């Protein structure tokens, strides 16, 4: 059991800055994110794209913003729990007991939901029967590539993951790469390599085909694919891999009894507390009149939510308003030596 003052759900820019604001006022926190790294949309969707509207930062990329935020919270030694999705919350007396998908548990005084548009999850095939094979012969990510040795693998997708795995697995397996059009979104050098392997007969490339159905019993035997023009093919496959990027799913947050409106959580604008006391929501996931889904709004919301957490974490103390420029306490927490 991890005991801390506040649990932040989501390591996007908003959650990261909220950790800073909690640290400054002397509260401890830990952060959970379903992704394998911090940064939320900035790191997952646009790490290399420049952002021009962070106050006092004329230009920085999604990745630079994330790194700067991580640098800024370094003094507080915030503990991250990555690759974990928050599943369940339960009120125990005045505190919250929180559980993640991987079985990590927390005992906290308050929860700050900074979950953006939801946790990032792999996009799945639209064909219904696929669910049945998911995890055994149909996969959306690869943990152990040795299982594919000498097998026939059908890979769907046209981005870097699909191309890179097709190239890599073609060394030890029979690979079919299936994509809905002739163009690819992955790196040009990988596209060239795939075409070359195809010409050398080391990989089968099917473009303008999409999945029609999967055939099998306990495991997949073959997959039927359909050309734009209607022609279908059945190809033997021991494994089917789908690489369609990630999608955001609100998931378990919907079941916690929060007031949800169009996939967002309603909050008050004084402390960004939700309809459930000691649960706060900030960033893209919160809604209130005038809400702008911008990073700068998330920073403001995080500053107020952090202060809102104080009375739950330290009910017997009074929070004083202070500036970091002049507050000795804040500077001590930041580890500033004078």
């Amino acid at each position, binding site marked *: 059991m991890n005991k801390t003052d506040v649990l932040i759900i989501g390591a996007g820019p908003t959650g990261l800055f909220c950790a800073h604001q909690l640290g400054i006022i002397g509260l401890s926190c830990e952060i959970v994110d379903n992704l394998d790294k911090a940064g939320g949309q900035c790191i997952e969707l646009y790490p290399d794209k420049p952002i021009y509207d962070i106050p006092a930062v004329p230009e920085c990329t999604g990745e630079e913003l994330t790194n700067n935020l991580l640098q800024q919270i370094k003094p507080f030694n915030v503990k991250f729990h990555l690759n974990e999705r928050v599943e369940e919350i339960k009120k125990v007396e005045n505190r919250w007991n929180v559980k993640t998908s991987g079985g990590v548990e927390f005992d906290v005084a308050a929860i700050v939901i900074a979950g953006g548009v939801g946790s990032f999850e792999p996009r799945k095939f639209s064909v219904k029967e696929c669910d049945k094979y998911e995890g055994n012969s149909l996969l959306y990510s690869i943990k152990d590539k040795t299982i594919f040795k000498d097998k026939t693998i059908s890979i769907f997708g046209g981005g870097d993951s699909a191309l890179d795995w097709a190239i890599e697995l073609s060394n030890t397996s029979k690979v079919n790469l299936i994509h809905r*059009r002739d163009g690819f979104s992955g790196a040009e050098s990988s596209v060239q390599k795939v075409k070359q392997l195809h010409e050398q007969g080391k990989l089968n490339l099917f473009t303008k085909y*999409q999945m029609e159905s999967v055939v099998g019993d306990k495991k997949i035997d073959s997959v039927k694919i359909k050309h734009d023009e209607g022609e279908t093919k059945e190809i033997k496959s021991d494994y089917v891999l789908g690489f369609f990027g990630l999608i955001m799913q609100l998931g378990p947050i919907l079941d916690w009894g929060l007031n949800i409106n169009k996939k967002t959580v309603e909050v008050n604008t004084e402390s960004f507390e939700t309809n459930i006391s000691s649960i706060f929501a900030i960033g893209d996931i919160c809604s209130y009149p005038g809400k702008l889904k911008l990073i700068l709004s998330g920073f403001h919301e995080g500053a107020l939510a952090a202060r809102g957490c104080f009375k739950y974490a330290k009910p017997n103390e009074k929070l004083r308003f202070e500036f970091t420029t002049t507050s000795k306490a804040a500077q001590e927490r930041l580890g500033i030596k004078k």
Partner: protein
Amino acid sequence: MAKITFNTHDNNTHTIDIQNGLSVMEGAVQNDIPGIDADCGGGMACATCHVYVKDEWLNKLPAKEDGEEDMLDMAFEPKNNSRLSCQLIVSDELDGLEVNIPSKQA
């Protein structure tokens, strides 16, 4: 201003007026048309604003910009008449546009 018709998967039809300059996605979201999720708010990063354009409109729409086709690779059941509605900016020329919304966005 353009009148745009959305056919949703449950066989309902919604015709709404959308102001010039807004995207078809924004018009749909503001009018609570079901089935347009637009998770990334128009950033061309989610493909959950995916629509199928009526065939006769395909060639009348502004061409896809870089990245739209890449993002459509990720969409739920993309077809040749697929577009991202956040990339369709409304103008008088779009008056009468009709699109079908896929059964799901993800």
